[in-house]
């Protein structure tokens, strides 16, 4: 276990290193000039050159990346080109909002998905099951921005139950979390259904029925705890999916998280912020996957970590 953990941690660190290298390389070779953005349209060639030299952007790639990496190893993400502050401070200021949204969204996903999955498994093959599976297909096929806008239109514009966007109170959280929760619940519902079906076929369930336990007790006390574990283990993977899609929901709802920070930085070619948010997201993805692998043997003792 110790050796496994050490190896995985080293691997994760190497993956993050690779992500930083590729992102930096892409931003270096792409035809976007951050200096033009900083200097503004009316700047003279001399001003542009002096800014370029000041930021070290006239250096060759190896030197620039080497310096970035050296700072990164000291946990320094650099300074924003356009906002006069440290990238780590900007991200730290935005991260709580994103984490709050992520927590609420995962809670929604689990509640909706697991409930639908159990119902579908118990009514397996009937019309209710088929209807729920169609619903889960619709959920995984729906574009986030469309669902965001429709929920906004119905619940904020027409009914006025929730604010149209922004941050601060519980009411602000409901619609963005519900958007992500509804869409993500499709996967959980399908997983919960097939896991529940597998468990309901197992011998110990037949034994539990045979000794005369009530149906409710067999399902809630014996089947559910076993069926739910593989689904819970997916949360780690889900963090990665969540991090990938945060930009859209945050920009539609005006949610001040790191997705919006990244989106604004991309539009202004503010490379240190883009790098910082990419690395933080990649860190969350790697950590989530590692977590999923680490809990797997506790959930299914047949899995051995090698």
């Amino acid at each position, binding site marked *: 276990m110790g050796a496994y953990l050490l190896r995985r941690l080293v*691997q994760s660190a*190497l*993956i*993050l290193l*690779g*992500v930083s290298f*590729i*992102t930096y390389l*892409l*931003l270096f070779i*792409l*035809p*976007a000039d951050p200096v033009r953005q900083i200097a503004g349209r009316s700047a003279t060639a001399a001003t542009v050159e002096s800014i370029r030299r000041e930021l070290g952007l006239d250096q060759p790639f190896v030197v620039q990346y080497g310096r970035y990496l050296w700072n990164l190893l000291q946990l320094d993400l650099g300074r924003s080109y356009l906002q006069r502050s440290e990238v780590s401070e900007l991200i730290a200021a935005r991260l709580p909002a994103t984490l709050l949204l992520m927590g609420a969204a995962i809670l929604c996903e689990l509640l909706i998905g697991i409930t639908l999955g159990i119902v579908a498994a118990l009514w397996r093959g009937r019309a209710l099951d088929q209807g729920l*599976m*169609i619903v889960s*297909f*619709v959920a*995984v*096929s*729906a*574009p*986030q*921005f*469309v669902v965001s*806008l*429709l929920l906004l*239109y119905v619940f904020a*514009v027409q009914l006025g139950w929730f604010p149209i966007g922004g941050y601060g109170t519980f009411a602000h959280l409901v619609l963005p979390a519900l958007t992500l929760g509804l869409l993500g619940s499709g996967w959980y519902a399908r997983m919960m259904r*097939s896991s529940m*079906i597998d468990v309901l076929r197992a011998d110990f369930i037949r034994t539990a029925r045979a000794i005369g336990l009530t149906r409710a007790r067999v399902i809630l006390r014996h089947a559910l705890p076993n069926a739910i574990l593989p689904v819970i283990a997916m949360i780690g993977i889900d963090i*990665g999916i969540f*991090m*990938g*899609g945060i*930009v*859209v929901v945050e*920009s539609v709802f005006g949610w001040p998280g790191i997705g919006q920070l*990244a*989106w604004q930085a*991309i*539009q202004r*070619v503010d490379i240190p912020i*883009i790098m910082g*948010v*990419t690395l933080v*997201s*990649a860190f969350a*993805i*790697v950590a989530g*996957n590692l977590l999923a692998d680490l809990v797997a043997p506790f959930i299914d003792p047949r899995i051995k970590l090698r």
Partner: protein
Amino acid sequence: MTTSVVPDRKPRGVLARLRRRPLAVIGFVLIAIVVAGAVLAPWIAPHDPNQQHFDGLTIEGAPLPPGGEFLLGTDLLGRDLLTRILYGAQTSLIIGVVANGIALVIGTLVGLVAGYFRGWIGTILMRFTDLMMAFPALLLAICLAAIFQPSLWIVAMVIAFVNWVQAARVIYTETTSLSTRDFIAAERTLGAGAGRILFRHILPHLVPTIIVWGTLGISTTVLLEATLSFLGVGVQPPTPSWGNIIFENQTYFQAAPWLVFFPGTAVLLLALAFNLVGDALRDELDPLQRGRD
């Protein structure tokens, strides 16, 4: 072939078996409708996609609601929404097929080579695949698309670049297990070269997997294109795309929700259709999945 002793309850062809799955049939019908709409757009579209009609806006300059001459209403510039949605189907399908095709070719090659040769080539390729898995895909795509001045083909390349990873991993797993089988060892003993073994003997066994992932992947691609275009970094107006129709009219959606609702539904239905067909194909083609539902 003579008649079998036990009457076959299942028809043999995959297509024939898919016909018995109502969800797959719904998926096929939806795909057929979108393809027909895209191909026939120049003939069946009621108007020109870029014409800004004088009578396409109210006196106050607002878009017209659905009904009347403009069946699904008009957009902010007074263009016919139905026409733009029909032409938008072309964009979605072209990107869906091209981007996903490229992603599938890259994924298959990487997975095949890594799975067959293992060793250092395999290690490097699969570590690179792990690395791509750790990328926040949408963020990367947005970043790339925003920095290139995006055209239809650039958007397709960007999507392919972030989307080949899943296919590579699946193909890799299957190739590793196939290449330890006896018939491959026999080929090797007979002196067949790596190219011949890979493409004549391993690849044909992977065709079902490739078909399944190819179908499911189109759904992901269609969603990604719509999302990029919605953010304004995908396909650029005036070329209509379901995503950029919503992008262009977003500021007005509180007053004119149909401008979000119709193109949004189109994206949803096309993605749904490919998911339905892909899922049914997986059930039919993957022996491990059979009998589970």
